[in-house]
């Protein structure tokens, strides 16, 4: 357990040390750089939007997968995992060939912010579905029957009985989805076009710092992202506790 923690903590610490090595000025220069700021904002905002969408859509998909019976259900269940399973650069290629120039479905969004949203959505959709699904499977239908015989409509039953039981799972999935969203590289790099201040995301920005040999700035950006991720996980946890208590 200790070894495992060290395995994770040492590289993280190294990054923070590297970033702070140059003092506050490194952070300042990174943060005052328009391009970096734009990339940070774009990444965080897009990930937030997609995470919010995932929380709703993921729960609905999980619900359908667990409670409904329809033709092709097993196939859908399998397809959900595809973004997990494929190397992200392959996901990027797939997206590019689907939504890029000469799109076979007539949707050309490469180089726009839509492409950023789409790519993030593509790779993060499974998280909420896969965290909610097992909880929903464990939830006895008796509980829903009990609510129904007490006079609750299906909607009330969902809101007051089912949803509260799912909240921890939804938020856990959301944290994973957000963390994955802000760190995505492979799926984005091809389709987004990496236009500075328009579609360039943090990971791409970071990579260009590294290419330019500016490791200190790269470490500074990494540290900021680390803080953003921590902040997100902590606040999701706080919201989750609030919601759960209100039940």
């Amino acid at each position, binding site marked *: 357990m200790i070894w495992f923690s060290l395995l994770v903590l040492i590289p993280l610490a190294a990054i923070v040390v590297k970033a702070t090595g140059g003092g506050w000025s490194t952070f300042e220069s990174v943060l005052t750089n328009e391009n970096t700021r734009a990339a940070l904002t774009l990444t965080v905002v897009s990930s937030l939007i997609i995470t919010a969408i995932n929380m709703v859509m993921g729960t609905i998909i999980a619900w359908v997968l667990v409670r409904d019976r329809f033709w092709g259900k097993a196939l859908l269940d399998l397809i959900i995992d595809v973004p997990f399973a494929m190397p992200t650069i392959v996901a990027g290629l797939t997206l590019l060939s689907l939504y890029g120039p000469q799109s076979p479905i007539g949707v050309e969004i490469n180089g726009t912010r839509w492409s950023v949203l789409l790519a993030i959505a593509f790779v993060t959709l499974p998280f909420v579905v896969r965290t909610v699904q097992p909880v929903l499977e464990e939830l006895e239908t*008796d509980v829903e*029957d009990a609510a129904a015989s007490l006079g*609750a409509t299906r909607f009330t039953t969902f809101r007051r009985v089912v949803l509260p*039981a799912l909240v921890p799972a939804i938020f856990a999935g959301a944290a994973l989805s957000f963390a994955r969203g802000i760190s995505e590289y492979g799926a984005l790099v091809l389709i987004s076009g990496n236009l500075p201040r328009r579609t360039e995301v943090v990971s791409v920005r970071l990579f260009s710092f590294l290419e330019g040999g500016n490791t200190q700035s790269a470490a500074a950006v990494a540290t900021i992202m680390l803080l953003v991720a921590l902040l997100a996980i902590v606040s999701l946890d706080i919201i989750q506790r609030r919601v759960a208590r209100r*039940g």
Partner: protein
Amino acid sequence: MSIEIKGVNKSFGDFVALDDVNVSLPTGQLTALLGPSGGGKSTLLRIIAGLDSADSGTVTIEGTEATHLPPQKRNVGFVFQHYAVFKHMTVAKNVAFGLEIRKRPKAEVAEKVDELLRLVHLQQFAHRLPSQLSGGQRQRMALARALAVEPTVLLLDEPFGALDAKVRKELRDWLRRLHDEVHVTTVFVTHDQEEAMEVADEIVVINNGRVEQVGTPDQLYDEPANDFVMGFLGETTKLGGTVLRPHDVHLSLRPQVPGAHEGTVARVLRVGFEVRVFVLTDDGDEVTVTLTRTQARQLGLEQDTRVWVSAVAGATTVDPVAAVV
């Protein structure tokens, strides 16, 4: 009649779970649905509650045709074997659920919840979560929750099935007392004949999706309609082609009554206060006889003792051939 079930059929795929069930359950009584596992008891109860729908037939609750009413509109209280508690709500919130949905004023809800928690002896646990209660307490909470909406009928599906024998017995006595206090028409499912005999005013015996017999505990015990009912309500043994209870067999060391069957004692088994004697008659029957310890000692029974066995006068007997439908 509070609940009228007419010609109800229900199949799951090819499997017939209920086969032309007709029952009337009287108002204000405590009725037991008794039968072996898989007999269709839960299915029937769920159809009454509207949680499942019958393939054909009708359900009338307190004069209202309810066959196609959704569960929300039937005003039945349902208690599940595995409690079905709302885990994230406190005990008080669980009980208040039905009332809050009906948008009753807060003060009224609080008062009613308080009254119900007192009724089920849980007033000091109002602010606990269900996970902090024992199984028996959880089930009492579920009962209070069901009673909160003042249901026309209360349905309990093996309410004590998940509890240990001692708590089970306590709760069943308590349910009987509660029913005498509240007087709501109650139907409870059990596969425990002792539970049904002790608690119920009336028993409906269900087997293989069919109603075998309806009657008071005494009627069922004294006049079983067939050997299934007889066998389900207590031990039986066979003597000269009839089925009867082991304690209705008379055993003596010399022929006393005409028509007694002669045989030898194969085994003597002491179980608590009673003694079970297995007699092999010369006609080839293996008859079980129960005696008290005193009787057995007086007779001095041992293996290979020659004995004569016969049905006592007024014994409950069923002819198994006639009972085969």
